[in-house]
């Protein structure tokens, strides 16, 4: 299969020599494995914070108390409407300037790139996540609660038995989508020097000048990760689907 690429390159008259072996040579494959590990680590940690922020602010946007709602709206609208790249530069280059000196020194010695990237990704995606969660909460009709209470359940029982199980099913598909966005966006951390997967492929490209091989490796790994997670979550959604509810969940996404 790789030989066919060689043939294609020759056919188009492109002066490029393929050497797929470089991916298995000594330091290169360790860069990729470490990069993949870093991508997974940064995505997982940012995901936890993003979901927490999303739940807190998504819920705050539905409370009846106006100042809290305004605060949550301000957070969501400001952070999700500015490019993530700008936030990463801000959290890495800008924000440490205003921190007290001891904290800054501590950060510099404990992987400031990593924590800046985590802050940037989780605050940005937390704002996006809260929109998804709010849409999910609001897409459950009030009549569900009323029907539960009038059939003799208490409010907490209604929430536990009816509202939350439905809400989870409605929220899981868009949250999965958003989580995959987070995973892909973690590649931006390379711009502030975090040695994740995209950084590793660029590093191999710089050291060997074999861009095609290096980028192919990165692309395939991202594809396997994203399609794999999407496939598993799709199976989970189908297993727990309630007929008739999924159509409404898709409408609520708009």
């Amino acid at each position, binding site marked *: 299969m790789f030989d066919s690429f060689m043939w294609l390159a020759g056919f*188009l008259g*492109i002066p*490029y020599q393929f050497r797929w072996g470089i991916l298995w040579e000594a330091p290169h494959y360790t860069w990729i494995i470490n990069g993949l590990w870093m991508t997974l680590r940064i995505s997982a940690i940012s995901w936890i914070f993003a979901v927490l922020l999303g739940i807190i602010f998504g819920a705050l946007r539905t409370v009846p108390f106006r100042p809290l709602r305004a605060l949550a709206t301000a957070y969501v*609208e*400001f952070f999700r*409407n*500015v*490019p*993530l*790249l*700008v*936030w990463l*530069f*801000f959290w890495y*280059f*800008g*924000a440490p*300037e*205003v921190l007290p000196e001891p904290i800054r020194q501590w950060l510099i010695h404990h992987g400031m790139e990593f924590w800046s990237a985590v802050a940037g990704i989780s605050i940005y995606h937390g704002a996006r996540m809260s929109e998804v969660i709010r849409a999910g909460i609001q897409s459950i009709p009030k009549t569900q609660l009323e029907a539960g209470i009038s059939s003799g359940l208490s409010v907490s029982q209604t929430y536990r038995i009816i509202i939350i199980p439905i809400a989870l099913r409605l929220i899981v598909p868009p949250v999965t989508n958003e989580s995959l966005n987070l995973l*892909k*966006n973690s*590649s*931006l951390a*390379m*711009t502030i020097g975090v040695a994740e997967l*995209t950084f590793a*492929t*660029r590093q191999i*490209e710089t050291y060997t000048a074999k*861009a*095609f091989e290096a*980028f192919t490796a*990165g*692309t395939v790994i*991202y*594809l396997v990760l*994203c*399609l794999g997670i*999407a496939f598993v979550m799709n199976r989970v959604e189908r297993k727990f689907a309630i007929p008739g509810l999924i159509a409404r969940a898709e409408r609520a996404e*708009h």
Partner: protein
Amino acid sequence: MSFDFGVIISNLKFLLLQGLIGIGMFTGGTLRLAIPAILLGFCVGIILGLARLGQRPWIHYPAAIYIELIRGIPLVMVIFWFWFLAPVFLKRPVPEYWIALTAFVCFEGAYIGEIVRAGIQSVPRGQIDAATATGLGYIQTMIQVILPQAIRNMIPSLVTQFIVLFKDTSLASIIGMMDLTKAAQTVAARELRPFEMYIFIAVIYWIFTYSMSRFSLWLEIRMSPERVASPG
């Protein structure tokens, strides 16, 4: 740490003219990249969306594979692919602006294609049957019944995608194109004022994206008669 927001004023001309609009010695500019990228991405998206709904397998499968492939990898990766492949295939150096534009059109086209497909599929089949029953032909059905509803359903997602694309143009700075982000980086490095600089461009980006999202909301309310009747 004291703030000096004066650096914004003294570099305002460079940031806005060169960075935002793209007038100056560098080919670039956030708006100069975003506007053609949105228009061309929309065209590519319509073609891909219709192709994915096509009946013939040799039209349907390539479109589906392309869309799923692009949606499974980060935009940075796509930009790097074009950055590497364009000079190899064209056998001459290619300006960053054109690399970024091509990458954005190819990348966003896949996302817009999915929106177009969902929009057309969101129109109930009964509408086609009803239109046929009243004596309309296929083309009349499409133009007068299906497409107006499909486009109305698509608009919120389309504007959201345009906002995403506008924000994504900041990634062109990674391959060195002079956009708002790159301009701010340059000034921040020269003046040693990163905090003020990045807050400033965050506000500029926000003004554009927020007004686009307000516009989308307005359009959505305006174009759906049923919502006017029952607010909330």
